[in-house]
């Protein structure tokens, strides 16, 4: 049994992209993991192996390849069920990603259940994917969209929620378990408790949380939960929507087509069983199977180890960055409430200029509004720079980042 420290050192070997150099022969320092993560050989090889040896459509044909393909595809559903602890595999729907998952809920649940005057509650630190679908729905239904505000530490003001719930008109409260900009970990338990008492459904955007910490959906007790594969070592174009079965049964189909039907006649159709009712057409088979390999990989490391590694890196980075003169870090300093995401601004230098200058050192950080313009307005900034960590990042990566800021200071005469 190797120590966790050597475990994290050694796993870099599994990521071929980390061996390459960028720009002027600089080793790649990849710090944009909140956007998407790199893929280990285990995931890449699983996908190529599928296309080389097992490719066939699922759920239909009786020949050997189709059987292998179907089994591999469905086994990912079981892996997900145990990874995020859900009891019933038929509650897990494969989608393209978190965005599609939330849109599916807004359409297939929202359209039959939201009426004029109803309220949907979201928060000020949501990604656009947890705002825009609800704007579309509430505008169409003449319903209302309300926001739980955020305090200056980047934490939600839950008194707002009480106020909205007291109207008796709230039908859904939707929030991210971890902010993609501030890294704030939402007090989901408290929100869900309040909503349950009020008889209101809850949706959790888990895109930033599931890759970085142990998530137990059963224990959370929400009604909808969404996350993406590509932010947790898996391929792009695959994600998960989980819906509690009694709620799922009240939802209308999202896409019509093959695989989602039981019987089709000229003028009427009956639907397939759950979850297939919501998986129309040939799905993204190869990437679902690749996602399964990513889950295996993370399971082997252990999500508590992942979290511990990131807490240590984030602490180290917060310490180092807060010593840089003129650098402002957004969000809470309480590490128990923060994931491995650090958004900052450096004096009066625009984040795009910061990102471009440090790109010369091989550093990949994100700059911009991070698909969270409502939050940018709240922070009263146009953009931020964001460094976000994952299992393969090291303290050395952070040292390179901090040193590169000297170049920025020099260029902009800070």
């Amino acid at each position: 049994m190797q120590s966790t420290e050597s475990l994290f050192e050694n796993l870099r070997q599994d990521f071929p992209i980390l061996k390459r150099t960028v720009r002027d022969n600089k080793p790649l320092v990849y710090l944009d993991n909140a956007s998407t993560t790199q893929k280990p050989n285990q995931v890449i090889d699983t996908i190529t192996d599928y296309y080389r040896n097992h490719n066939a459509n699922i759920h239909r044909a009786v020949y050997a390849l189709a059987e292998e393909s179907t089994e591999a595809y469905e086994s990912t559903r079981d892996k997900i069920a145990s990874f995020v602890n859900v009891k019933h595999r038929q509650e897990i729907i494969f989608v393209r990603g978190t965005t599609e998952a939330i849109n599916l809920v807004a359409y297939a649940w929202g359209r039959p259940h939201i009426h004029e005057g109803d309220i949907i509650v979201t928060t000020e630190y949501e990604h656009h994917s947890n705002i825009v679908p609800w704007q579309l729905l509430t505008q169409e239904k003449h319903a209302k969209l309300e926001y739980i505000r955020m305090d200056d530490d980047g934490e939600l003001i839950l008194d707002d929620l009480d106020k909205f719930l007291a109207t008796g008109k709230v039908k859904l409260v939707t929030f991210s378990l971890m902010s993609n900009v501030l890294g704030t970990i939402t007090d989901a338990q408290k929100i869900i408790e309040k909503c349950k008492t009020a008889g209101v459904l809850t949706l959790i955007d888990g895109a930033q949380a599931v890759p970085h910490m142990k998530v137990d959906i059963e224990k959370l007790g929400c009604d909808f939960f969404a996350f993406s594969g590509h932010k947790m070592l898996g391929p792009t174009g695959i994600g998960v929507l989980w819906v509690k079965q009694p709620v799922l049964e009240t939802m209308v189909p999202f896409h019509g087509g093959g695989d989602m039907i039981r019987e089709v006649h000229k003028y009427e159709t009956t639907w397939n069983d759950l979850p297939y009712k919501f998986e129309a057409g040939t799905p993204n088979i190869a990437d679902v199977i690749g996602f399964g390999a990513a889950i295996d990989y993370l399971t082997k490391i252990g999500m508590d180890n992942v979290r511990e590694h990131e807490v240590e890196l984030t602490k180290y980075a917060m310490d180092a960055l807060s010593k840089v003169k003129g650098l402002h870090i957004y969000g809470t300093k309480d590490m128990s409430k923060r994931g491995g995401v650090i958004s900052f601004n450096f004096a009066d230098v625009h984040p795009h200029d910061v990102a471009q200058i440090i790109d010369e050192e091989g550093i990949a950080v994100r700059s911009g509004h991070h698909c969270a313009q409502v939050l940018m307005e709240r922070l009263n900034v146009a953009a931020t720079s964001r460094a976000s960590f994952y299992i393969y990042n090291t303290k050395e990566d952070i040292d390179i980042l901090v040193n590169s800021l000297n170049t920025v200071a020099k260029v902009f005469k800070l």
Partner: protein
Amino acid sequence: MSSNADIYHEMIVDYSRNPANYGKIDDHDVTFHDSNPLCGDSIDIDMKIDDDKVTDIKFHGRGCAICMACSSVLTEITKGKTLDEARAIDKNDVLSELGLEHLQAVRIKCALLSLKVLKSALYAYIGEHLENTQDLDTLKEEAANLY
């Protein structure tokens, strides 16, 4: 160009700190706003137009150093030009002034946001003051081909 960071030369940094023609014109004859959906950069241009000539131009908004420097240079180039001359301003007129001819694709939109706003403002103004409606199609075509 040896390195992308070389674009941050003296002139760009100076303009980003002290942009030229920055501000508003309260009694403008035309104003236009646009933003870059990818990065959130946002620019407004106000113009004063007398006898088909741009007699004053100012911009305001927020953006990166590239965006602020290019907006500064663009407004300097435009001031005093006739509407036809302003219409003919090309992206290279702005980029070459700042040595940004080889700017990477991802940053070109930062550099040319203000040019897009200027052209849109000009089309809006010219469209409103057209005497010959035949010119409208030409104008629309020119606007459609902006990017």
